């Protein structure tokens, strides 16, 4: 028989926080995959068009990498501090 007591307990304060945490981790995981796609696409575009002037290609690639590092950092932070 289904235990409704536990279901209601899930929607108490701690349960809601747990649900948000799981949802956030899932979103961040998908986001990490997306940033990988962005990095690969930037590499492809840099091969197609090399803008060595003003070190533009390097700068864009560094920014894409920075977003990946930030996302991984936030994933770990969500795991640890929440």
């Amino acid at each position, binding site marked *: 028989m289904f235990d409704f007591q536990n279901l209601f307990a899930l929607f108490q304060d701690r349960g809601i926080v747990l649900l948000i945490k799981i949802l956030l981790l899932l*979103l961040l995981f998908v986001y990490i995959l997306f940033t990988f*796609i962005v990095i690969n696409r930037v590499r492809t575009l840099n091969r197609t068009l090399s803008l*060595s*002037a*003003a070190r533009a290609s390097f700068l864009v690639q560094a920014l894409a990498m920075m977003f990946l590092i930030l996302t991984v950092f*936030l994933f770990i932070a969500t795991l640890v*501090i*929440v």
Partner: protein
Amino acid sequence: MPDIFTNSKKNIESKPTPQATQLPVENLSNPPGLFSAYCPNPTGINFANQEPDENIVLFLRRHFITNVPWIVSVLLLLIVPVLIFSISNFFAISFFAIPPQLSFVLVSFYYLFILNFGFLKFINWFYHVGIVTQKRLVDLDVDNILHYHLAETEISDVVDVSYAQRGFFQSFFKYGDVHIQTQAIKANFQFEQCPNPGEVADIITDLRPEEKGEKSNV
């Protein structure tokens, strides 16, 4: 007896032969900046399959003013959490009864999402380029991060070049679309929202072999 037909060849021969148009020599070393949208004779730019003796005559992006809508959107979205927290503190209203650690992570995720949105918009603008060399036209269209399209055509295939400026902003900031019609079987080209469309159309037209006087020998 009056002359019905007179040979006008002498008059034609007396006309000067069209000279091959050259771009200004003073712009021969011209490295484009990070936000350059119009750069004649650029240095420090290479593209895939570029031939050793092929020089880039013109490097184009969309006018920087076309980025203003998304920059304003990002700036407005960046101040939304600050506004919400300010209002909730001022009126002593608690919108979310969530632990401070979780709210920190949520706000961080929000900011990361907004900044990444801005970065992707910047990439779309940055790599959406048109390149004119003395041999061909290259059009790299990046509509979004998951879709890009590269097209190129020989200068000799260009049939007609025209440009259009529509609306207040395009007239005020002097940018517009350059349409390049190629031979029927090939797709037509378009450099969207590029600065100085009249000059761009003029440069491409001058690069055509017909304009360089190769047809005048026929």
